[in-house]
Structures are given as C-alpha cells and as structure tokens.
C-alpha cells in the first residue's frame, strides 16, 4: 500500500479516494439533505395542524411531500446506509483500502449531483416534481406533470441511484476480496454481514429503478411506454421492485450497527451469530419477493404469492429480534446514548414491523391503502426505526471517526426528544389513517378527531426538530471543547477499535490474530 500524506486542501478533500473520506463526505451531504427534507416535513405538518389551507397552497404542498419523500429515500437514508459501510467495512475486515476506489468516488460525486438536480426543480416555471416520491404513471406523464421539475426529478433520481449502486459494488467487492488473513466469511463482524445483505439488495434491485425512470423520461418525451391499461402497472412493478428492497437497504446496515452496539454495551459476545447471518441472507432474498404487496389495490397482482412471502418475512425478522434480546439477557448493560438509540430502534421498528403485517394482508390493505395508516407504518420503520439505528451508530462510532467524544447528556436528551417526538408524530397517523384520512392531502375534514390527531403529529414533528437541534449542538460542543476518545473508548469487539482514532490513511499498522467475529473480545478474554 502506497502511503501518501493527507492533503488538507479542498481539492484533497473532494478528490480523495480514501474510503474514510468518501464515507464522511457521503454522510455529511446526506445529513444536509436530511435537514432540508426534514424542514419540508415541518412545513407540511404546520399546514396539517388544523383543517383548511393556512400556510401553503395545494400545489406547493404537493411539491413539498414529493421532495420530502424523494429526498429522504434517494438522498438521505440509502446514502447514509452506504456511507456507514464505506467507512467501517474495510476497518472491520482489516483491509487497508477499498476495491475500485475510483468507482466509489464517482458514486460519491453522483449522489450530491443528483440531489442538486432534483431540488433545482423548485427554480423552474412549473415548480418541482409533485407526483409523489413514487412518481406513478400516469400522474407523472407530460400532461399531468408538465414542466422541467418532473424531468429534473427523474434525472436526480437516476444520478443518486447510480451513485448508491457504485458505492455498493465497491463495498461488496471489498468484502469478497480484501479481508485480512484469518477473516473468513464466518468471522465477518455482524455489521459487515448486514452490509453484504445490503449490497446484494442494491446490486439486484436498484437497476430496476434506473430502467423505470429512464422509461419514464422516454414516456414523457418520445412515446407512451406507460400508456394503456397495463402501462401504469408495469411502472409500478419496476418501481416497487426497487421501492420495497430499498426499505431493507436502509434497515439492514442499521440493524447491523445496532447489533454491534447491543453486544458491546451488554459486555457480551453477540448471541446467535450464525442464526443472524442466515436470517440476514434469507431476509434479504425474501424482501426481493414481496414488492407487489404495494400493489394489492390495483387488482393486477398475484395476491396469494405476495401476501405469503410478505408474511414469511416475520420469521427471519423474529430470529434477528431474538438474537438482539438474547445478547442483552444476562449482559452487564450500560445505558449509553448509543445503547438507548439501539433499544429505541428495537422497540420502534417492532411497531413498524407489526403494522406491516396489516398492509401485507390484502383484505386489511384494501381498507388502509393510500391512507395515513401507511404513512404512519413506514415512518415507524424508516424514521423511528432506521434513523434511531443510524444515531446509535453515530454515538457508537463518532469517537472512532473524529477521535473525540460526543456529550452523553446531550445524547440522552436527544434520545428522549426523538423517542417522544417519533411516537407523538407517527402513532396518531396510524389512528387517523385507520379512520380514513387519505395521504397526500393538504386539507381534510374534521371528522373522527382528525384535527386532534393531526395537531398531535405536528407537535411531535417539532419535538423531533428540537432533538435534531440538540444533536447539532452536541456536534458543535464536541468540536469546540474536544474530549479525546482514545483508540477504544467502549471496549469494542471488532477490528476498527484496534487502530487509532481517527484511523491513519492506511488504516492499520498491525493487526491482532482473527479467530472469531469478535477478535478484540477474544483478546481481552485471553488477557483476563
């Protein structure tokens, strides 16, 4: 490995092929898009606090929910998931760098370029895209969505999706080829295994979105690809073949991170490692086969098959939950901020998963389809689930990335605000959706206490915003008054804690022997 001194210049920052810099860059601008898309959510919640139109027009509201959802999926959660993998997978497997660093760098650049392209729709005559993050045909065709905003959305989606795809190819190849001596596949850390599942899903499902969006552009400007009775169904098949696996792309890395956190802060080796690895692979394969449960209401899909596969998903999910809880049982649990977010992830994702059973069952799905119940369900999985997992990872790995500690008190305050805020926002959505409130509306009738439910959701959304401000304050305090972290502040189990904080460009000066999936835990056990 050729070691070249780091450059502090801007060119050195934006052009670096160091996997750690790529990971930090992707995470940084994904977090920027999170703040922007989150601000859109606050405007929407302010509008929905009371019936009637008070803050924005219906047209602007349509743009806001479209760009909020698109931003969160294309530019925030999927890039964040891959950013974690890009940074930590080489460190966990004892590699000095990544495979195909230039490919990863191109991917790294494509994501923000996609984001800028997508959001630049606001500057065009007809405004940004307003066909929802799913852009269903024919709502997204040239007659119903005229103007450049929709086209910019398509190109932004294409660029960002291609970017994530390239990052996944690089991470997966690194796992296949660059493992340290002794690091066999069955000694890969849990987080790395979760990235294997994630990358497999990205590589096999994201091309479907690239095809869907390319054809959508052709449909809008050249010929009616999605015309006729079967056209919109074809689009939905292609879109959901990406759209459902992407939920797991933004779930697996965070359950992997949560598993690491749970093991380290329970002071135990991870329980049921082999079962977890198997369940991750089965979970990933099954999650590729459930996409059309989003399409039950079209009446054009094989309900039995998709309902069955969607229900079977419970089995690997149950195994993972069993392993997480099994690790905690009998452990000496330390309730740090990271551990609190991990437990929050386990609890809140469970609510998301259980409400998923309802939408996986055709007769129940017919009742709640396109209502706020669905919005509540997927926000429980994505925000209340995956984002809690992300913050567990942030509090756990921030000392490794920066060499500084985040403040625990501020972390716990953020957790309390997030936990209260998430439940206050999303649980009333389940109730209002069950009562029949449709999604994607700026106004609603005040029946069945919908006004109360919406007011609660709005208060919850601002509580979450307050929690985000606490996190930003925590970053600032950590930067202004740094508390050195040392190499291994948590007594971690995996190889990233062996090297310095932050790690050197070549990652490791030496490596300990690898005899299991938790080599540093083994070493500590041997010493004691």
């Amino acid at each position: 490995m050729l070691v070249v001194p780091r450059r502090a210049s801007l060119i050195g920052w934006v052009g670096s092929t160091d996997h750690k810099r790529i990971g930090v860059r992707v995470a940084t601008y994904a977090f920027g898009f999170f703040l922007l898309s989150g601000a859109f959510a606050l405007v929407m919640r302010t509008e929905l606090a009371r019936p009637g139109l008070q803050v924005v027009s219906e047209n602007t509201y349509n743009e806001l929910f479209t760009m909020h959802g698109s931003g969160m999926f294309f530019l925030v959660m999927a890039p964040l998931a891959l950013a974690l993998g890009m940074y930590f997978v080489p460190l966990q497997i004892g590699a000095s760098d990544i495979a195909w660093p230039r490919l990863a760098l191109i991917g790294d650049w494509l994501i923000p370029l996609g984001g800028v392209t997508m959001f630049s729709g606001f500057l065009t005559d007809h405004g940004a895209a307003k066909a929802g993050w799913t852009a269903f045909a024919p709502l997204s065709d040239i007659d119903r969505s005229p103007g450049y905003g929709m086209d910019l959305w398509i190109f932004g989606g294409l660029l960002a999706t291609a970017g994530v795809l390239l990052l996944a190819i690089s991470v997966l190849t690194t796992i296949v080829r660059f493992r340290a001596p002794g690091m066999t596949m069955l000694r890969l850390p849990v987080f790395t295994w979760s990235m294997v599942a994630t990358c497999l899903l990205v590589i096999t499902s994201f091309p479907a979105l690239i095809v869907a969006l390319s054809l959508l552009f052709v449909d809008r400007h050249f010929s009616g690809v999605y015309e006729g009775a079967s056209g919109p169904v074809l689009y939905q098949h292609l879109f959901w073949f990406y759209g459902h696996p992407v939920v797991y792309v933004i779930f697996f890395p965070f359950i992997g991170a949560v598993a690491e956190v749970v093991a380290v802060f329970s002071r135990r080796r991870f329980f049921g490692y082999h079962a977890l690895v198997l369940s991750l692979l089965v979970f990933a394969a099954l999650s590729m086969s459930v996409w059309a449960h989003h399409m039950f209401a079209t009446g054009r899909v094989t309900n039995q098959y998709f309902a069955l596969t969607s229900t079977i998903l419970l089995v690997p999910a149950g195994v993972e939950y069993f392993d997480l809880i099994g690790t905690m049982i009998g452990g000496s649990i330390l309730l740090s901020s990271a551990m609190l977010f991990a437990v929050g992830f386990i609890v809140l994702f469970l609510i998301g998963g259980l409400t998923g059973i309802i939408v996986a069952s055709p007769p129940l799905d017919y009742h709640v389809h396109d209502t706020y119940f669905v919005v509540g369900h997927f926000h429980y999985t994505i925000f209340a689930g995956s984002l809690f997992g992300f913050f567990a990872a942030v509090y756990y790995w921030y000392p490794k990335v920066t060499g500084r500690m985040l403040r625990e008190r501020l972390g716990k305050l953020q957790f309390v605000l997030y936990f209260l805020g998430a439940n206050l926002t999303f649980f009333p959505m389940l109730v209002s959706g069950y009562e029949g409130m449709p999604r994607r509306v700026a106004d609603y009738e005040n029946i069945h206490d919908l006004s109360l439910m919406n007011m609660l959701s709005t208060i919850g959304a601002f509580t979450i915003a307050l929690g985000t401000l606490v996190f930003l304050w925590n970053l600032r305090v950590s930067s202004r008054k740094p508390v050195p972290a040392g190499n291994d502040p948590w007594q971690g189990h995996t190889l990233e804690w062996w090297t310095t904080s932050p790690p050197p460009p070549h990652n490791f000066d030496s490596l300990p022997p690898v005899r299991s999936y938790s080599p540093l835990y083994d070493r500590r056990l041997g010493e004691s």
Partner: protein
Amino acid sequence: MKVALPFVAWAALLTVLAAVLWVWSSDHVPPAIFTAAASVAWCVGLYALLRPFPRAVRRAPDLSLASGLVALAIAMLLLSALVGEWLLLIGGGALVAGLVWLARELRAERRVR
C-alpha cells in the same frame, strides 16, 4: 469456494422464489423482472467464485480528480436532454477528458508497481 458459497446460495434462493412466481403468476412481467434480478445475483456469485485474492502489496491512489470529472460529465450528459446541445458537447468533452485522465492515472499507478 467458501467465499462464494453465501452468494451462490443467495442467488439460488432468489431463483427458487422467482420460479415459484413463474408458476403462480398469470402475468409474465413480475417473474421476468425477478428472474433478471436473480441473474444479476448469479453474476455476483460467479465473481466471488472466480475472482482471486489481490496481491499482498497494492498501490492505491490518494487523489483522483479524474473520477470527479467523469461523474460531472455523466450528470451534464444526462441534463443535456433538457438543457440543449451545448451541454451535450461540454459534457461529452468532459467525459472524454475525464476518461483520458483516468487512463493516465491507471498507467502511472501500474508504473509504480
């Protein structure tokens, strides 16, 4: 072989699920999409099976502005469909320049080995 096993097993699982859908579904589009994805999974498995481990000493670039230029060129080429021919020409030029620059980087990297 051991490295490839999980990837091959995963591809096989996708193939089985796709096969069941072929039997169950009267519409050919869903199983066709699923089969295409399973084929990609087989390619990943094959890569894991055939690809040798890298040499112990590798040369890796510290900087690659050429990669950034290629990404920028791809974005420009895509956007030229909306903006016009002038961006197509700039994007095309940038792509060629980026690829040439990348080739020079790779050649220099090989020379150091």
